[in-house]
């Protein structure tokens, strides 16, 4: 195969694996926003928290990788519950104020992470079943990281699980009904406050879980929160707020744009992302799959 084509296919595969991570991070963000109209500006910090929980559990305590993922999900979901009950539930419906409060929380979390873990970059060792490389003839070098391929599997699993929760369970029915008409759902006797709590915990937990998944392939420092907040923002702005399918499409577009840009115009790659974002907004201000506000 010509070298250019091999390069291009490798870049595409990199883009898709990055998109898988972006999708998992953004899914929690879009879920929370879709139902509660709460912009969780601490979403990147939830990712960082989850990543460090994974570092502590897997690296320092030697637990299996999947236990680390579960622990990060539970720990960050609990943090989310505390934040929701302590702060956000008290200012329901005041979206700007909620955004400001979560910004304050993000500052505190990244500072405390810096205090406890220091500024060094950490990585989580991949589990044995996802270690090493896979022979793929059409990528550069003929081999590709097995773990990066597994992230695609993780994204599909997370996406499928969320789809099942949303479409096949009672709480999912409440969530979908709440996205359409919160007041009506409440009038039908559903405890909307509890649905909100579950969704916020789920969204935060997803960010925590993605922290472990991301930190296994990449690395984590206390200042990574900005990067994942940005990716979540751009993914849901492009894909459409509150839409799971939109998050998947947005993540694919942004992941591919980032990798293609990095390879072909390294010092201008972020430009491509923002040209795409501006272009989508010019045509559809609500995002590709978003509904008009």
């Amino acid at each position, binding site marked *: 195969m010509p070298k250019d084509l091999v390069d291009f296919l490798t870049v595409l595969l990199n883009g898709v694996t990055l998109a898988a991570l972006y999708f998992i991070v953004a899914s929690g963000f879009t879920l929370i926003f879709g139902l509660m*109209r709460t*912009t969780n*500006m601490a979403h990147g910090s939830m990712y960082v928290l989850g990543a460090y929980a994974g570092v502590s559990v897997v690296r320092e305590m030697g637990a299996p990788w999947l236990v680390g993922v579960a622990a990060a999900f539970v720990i960050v979901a609990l943090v989310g519950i505390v934040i929701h009950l302590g*702060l956000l539930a008290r200012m329901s*419906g*005041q*979206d*700007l*104020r909620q*955004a*400001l*409060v979560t*910004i*304050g*929380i*993000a*500052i*505190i979390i*990244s*500072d*405390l992470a810096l*205090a406890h873990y220091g500024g060094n970059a950490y990585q989580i060792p991949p589990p044995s079943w996802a270690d090493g490389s896979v022979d793929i003839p059409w990528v550069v070098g003929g081999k590709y990281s097995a773990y990066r391929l597994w992230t695609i599997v993780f994204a599909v699993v997370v996406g499928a699980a969320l789809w099942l929760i949303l479409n096949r369970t009672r709480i999912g029915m409440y969530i979908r009904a709440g996205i359409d008409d919160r007041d009506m759902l409440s009038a039908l006797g559903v405890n909307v406050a509890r649905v909100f709590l579950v969704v916020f915990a789920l969204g935060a937990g997803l960010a925590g879980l993605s922290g472990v998944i991301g930190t296994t392939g990449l690395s984590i420092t206390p200042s990574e929160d*900005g*990067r994942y*907040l*940005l990716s979540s*923002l*751009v993914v849901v*702005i492009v894909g459409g*707020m509150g839409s799971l399918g939109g998050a998947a499409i947005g993540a694919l577009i942004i992941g591919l744009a980032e990798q293609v840009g990095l390879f072909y115009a*390294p*010092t*201008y*790659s*972020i*430009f491509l*992302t*923002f040209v795409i*974002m*501006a272009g989508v*907004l*010019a045509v559809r*201000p609500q995002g590709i799959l978003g509904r008009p*506000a």
Partner: protein
Amino acid sequence: MSWLRSREGLATLAGLAILTIYPLVMPRFWVLSIASNSMILGIAALSLIFMAGYGGMVSLAQAALAGFAAYMLALATLEPSTTATGSAIGFALPSIAGAVIAVILATLAGALFGAISARSYGIYFLMLTLALAVGFFFFVLQNYEVFGGHIGFAKILGPTGQPRENPAVFYYMCLVAAALLYVGLRYVVRSQLGLTFQGIRDNPRRMSALGYRVGVHRVVLFAMGGFVAGVSGVLGAWYRGNISPGVVDISRTIDVLIIAVLGGLGYPIGAFVGAVVFVLIDVFASSIKIFGFSFDERFNTLIGLGFVLIVLVAPNGLVGLADRAWQSAGRRRGRATRRAVDPLAVEAGIAPAPEAAPFKSPAPPEPEAPAPEGAPPDIDGGTRDSPPTSRL
């Protein structure tokens, strides 16, 4: 009323006198690191308060626009050979010419950001401008060809030379810029244009139905915000003597928001009040102890806690608190005053609406703002409140 006005005038005069004498009697540290720094940050926050208070546009891109102006200043004034990475860009213009170019380009950048985000409102607008700001940060971080990558540019010299050598002169330069922008913006918000902004803030649909071009006005407002932020960026570059991605990173972006919220999103003077408080906390965090816990290294935790606290208990910021105290004192003296709920904060969703005013939009945020002739007609008829009694 007239005694109050004269008293207000007196207070302004006294304040100006103090600000003028300040650099002559205070040590250099207080002139530069506290006062000048506060004014530079305050101008950046002023641009945010201007956009948020009068256009309902809570922009998180102001630090990025300021940083953009600083980069443009560096590129315009530095010798090609002195750039940190040796890239051959640099026009070696005089510092004043460079500053003018930088501010003009920041205004244009503001217009571009405005064009991208003009159709987004509220929280969407906030997210979009944050994305633009963080995008700009990553762009200058990875771009070595023009923006010098993670090093940026050093040795940016202002018209007054090193601030350290002439602290008072640099201070006066900041003071004049801050005062001119403050007075200028207060003039703008009372003009036809400013009232149109406020109309769009309160009800874009109605303004559009009245024939105003809402999108264009929002772009213009963003461009004006870019102008103000650009001035802050130029002064900041002269103050530090350098520009690097660290100046436009996400925490600097958030700092501007913190200052504006700390001072009060609805009050232009809040920008400078917030900036002074922020800088004082920044400088003296090491000596603050709460329950025996020293915030020596944990300045950000302290500022984060303070920020959450302000949003929780005083959505109108410190100036809003003072305003409310003043009004309740006035009530005790038996003067008729209205409840001090900032309409902007209500509009922005950060304060509960007062029971007495069920409609959006009532009081123009500027106390003295009279409804001039030619103001857009109010099709709701009697919903607009009578002119508010004075606040401060």
